[in-house]
């Protein structure tokens, strides 16, 4: 009896092993390494939802290069060390495509790790698809052949934002508040430099850094902004750091205009509505709902039907995965060694409005039209509100692709 049990267990295990192998041959495993718990979880989960949604779209059409796409989430708790452990784990489990975005500190570590891993293991061909980390070092000093980014870098965004602010004569005193890590310092540095250049009459009355995703009550910071007499706040804060900041500002009745990078999700629209900041919060990104572009509306509609609480926070994730799948199909291979050369020079009509963007081979930065928008009550003809607030994004200015081209110092090392 005991023997029978053993042998059948062995048989089962072997069948399992074969099944896994057969399974692995016709699936493309994409590892999603981002915060799925802790302070960053709210936006990490939104990204995971979007990625799963796109994977299901592709699978419904028969997959890519003959393979079904499978998304596997790895929780990195917004922590660079844990991320590296998770990247290693993902590689060990057979993933060659690593999607990671939130936290430039994490992205720099992951990109470094992957580049070294590929150097040491010729043929491993791991690729890092970055949809959100925008510290400019990623496409300059620390650029890598195995790293691609779809979000405009902090310098590009700040350049566009300061061009917009340049003509606003009521901006006189600016307060900068940023998260205390590489990205926050990049944003604050760029803001100071560019404002000085374009509007030397503007006074910078505060340059604050606070810990990343750890502050629960921003009232003390808001009191400080209030006391500084600022009329404008510029911040690169994302996730709960933005939502809570605006929430506290609303409660204190802080009367300023906000210029932000990431006001689209994780409670920020809710906070803006509660604070009554109609058309006072500006956001720069690569697309909003309500741009009236049919294909985007269809997909956004389908996404929001499936995940009703989470908005389309990452239009760039559609750009990214659409391009990657296109490159795989063109190369007829899911091995990054084959499809990266295709991806490097690819042109792509952006998800949000169908305008042309392109991947620059020199630094693997995707260039695309950017839009500056404000949140306010839905107007006639606008379909989408955010987080069930009844308020939606509307266009304040658009920045064509040509105006976003910044030079790079990247010395790309090709294998």
């Amino acid at each position, binding site marked *: 009896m005991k023997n029978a049990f053993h042998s059948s267990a062995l048989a089962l295990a072997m069948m399992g092993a074969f099944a896994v192998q057969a399974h692995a041959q016709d699936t493309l495993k994409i590892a999603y390494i981002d915060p*799925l718990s802790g302070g960053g979880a709210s936006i990490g989960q939104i990204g995971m939802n979007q990625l799963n949604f796109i994977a299901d779209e592709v699978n419904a059409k028969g997959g890519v290069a003959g393979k079904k796409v499978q998304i596997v989430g790895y929780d990195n708790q917004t922590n660079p060390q844990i991320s590296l452990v998770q990247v290693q784990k993902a590689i060990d489990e057979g993933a060659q495509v690593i999607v990671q975005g939130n936290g430039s500190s994490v992205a720099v570590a992951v990109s470094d790790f992957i580049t070294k891993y590929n150097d040491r293991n010729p043929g491993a061909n791991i690729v890092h698809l970055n949809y959100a980390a925008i510290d400019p070092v990623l496409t300059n000093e620390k650029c890598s052949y195995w790293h691609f980014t779809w979000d405009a870098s902090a310098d590009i965004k700040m350049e566009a934002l300061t061009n917009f602010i340049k003509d606003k004569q009521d901006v006189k005193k600016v307060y900068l508040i940023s998260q205390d890590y590489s990205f926050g310092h990049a944003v604050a540095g760029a803001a100071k430099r560019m404002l000085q250049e374009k509007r030397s009459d503007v006074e910078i009355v505060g340059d604050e850094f606070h810990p990343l995703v750890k502050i629960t009550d921003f009232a*003390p910071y808001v*009191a400080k902004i*209030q006391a500084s007499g600022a009329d404008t706040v510029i911040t690169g804060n994302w996730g709960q750091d933005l939502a809570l900041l605006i929430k506290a500002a609303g*409660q*204190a*009745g802080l009367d300023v205009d906000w210029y932000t990078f990431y006001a689209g999700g994780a409670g920020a629209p809710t906070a803006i509505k509660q604070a009554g900041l109609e058309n006072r919060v500006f956001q720069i990104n690569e697309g909003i709902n309500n741009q009236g572009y049919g294909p985007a509306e269809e997909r956004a509609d389908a996404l929001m039907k499936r995940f009703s609480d989470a908005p389309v926070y990452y239009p760039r994730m559609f750009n990214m995965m659409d391009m990657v799948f296109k490159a795989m199909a063109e190369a007829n291979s899911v091995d990054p060694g084959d499809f990266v050369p295709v991806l490097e020079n690819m042109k792509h009509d952006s998800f949000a409005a169908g305008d042309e963007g392109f991947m620059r081979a020199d630094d693997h930065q995707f260039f695309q039209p950017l839009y500056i928008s404000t949140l306010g009550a839905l107007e006639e003809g606008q379909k989408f509100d955010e*987080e069930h607030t009844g308020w939606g994004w509307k266009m304040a200015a658009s920045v064509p692709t040509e105006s976003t081209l910044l030079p790079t110092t990247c010395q790309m090392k090709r294998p």
Partner: protein
Amino acid sequence: MLEIIFISTLNGILYGMLLFLMASGLTVIFSMMGVLNLAHASFYMLGAFFGFELTRRLGFWPALVLAPVLVGLVGMAVERYGLRRVHSHGHVAELLFTFGLTFVIKEVVEMVWGKLPADYRIPTSLDFPAFTLFSTNYPAFRLFVLLISIAIFVALLLVIKKTRVGLVVQAALTHPGMVGMLGHNVDRVFMLVFGVGVGLAAVAGVIAGPILITQSNMAGLLGPILFVVVVVGGLGSLGGALAASLLIGLVQTFAVAFNVSLADLFGSSAVGAVLSVWLSDIWRVTVAQVAPILPYLLLVLILIFRPRGLMGTRDT
């Protein structure tokens, strides 16, 4: 300047009082049962989510009463059927039990309400500026939170110092065996204290939820600070917990308000020139940037120089 000092003081006291609501229960449970309830902040989170859910269904005022009662009942059940059983296996088992409980509560909250922040709003009846000072509004809800916390502190003090129940609790703190001999059901006292303790944390959750964030990681953000409060204040001392809560609330708020760094302090003096070389890493770091670690610095200093805490009575 006056404006920021005044507003920071109010904010500091408010944060301190919220900490006190949680720490008061924790410190009493700790000194009575010898259990460091690692899950205390999780009950605070449970309070916030129960408050959110009940507010949605019944309105804020019923939620303010019902949510803490419900959480208190959950707490009593946990004590009766969980803690009491592992009690016989010693403190390590109890510690592990409450540690595990934090994960269970977090997972349950994530399963029911998800990982995204809940849209827990300030009730409309309290959503107006209480007063405007210089140019800053002070929200009525914050003032309300402040008053509630003070009221609870006074009530708690009266119950413990002036009533028979308080007498039994105090006695059970130090001489549980003797209290049992005198015919009191010590187990039931423990259960009640645990229930009331986590109920107070739940009150903090219900009223802090709309101001701070109602999200599944809120327990993790506040938990560590609670232990600082309990240790700094001294075990089992309500007065100590109050003093430590206010101290930490004020230190954190005021630290944020000021941009002083070592460079500003020593400036261009001769000492400054030497120090700036030796301390180059932290030379330009402002107090505002290190605000969040100040409570832990305080914890370390207290453990070194006054292990019993500010008002504690025994060195444990």
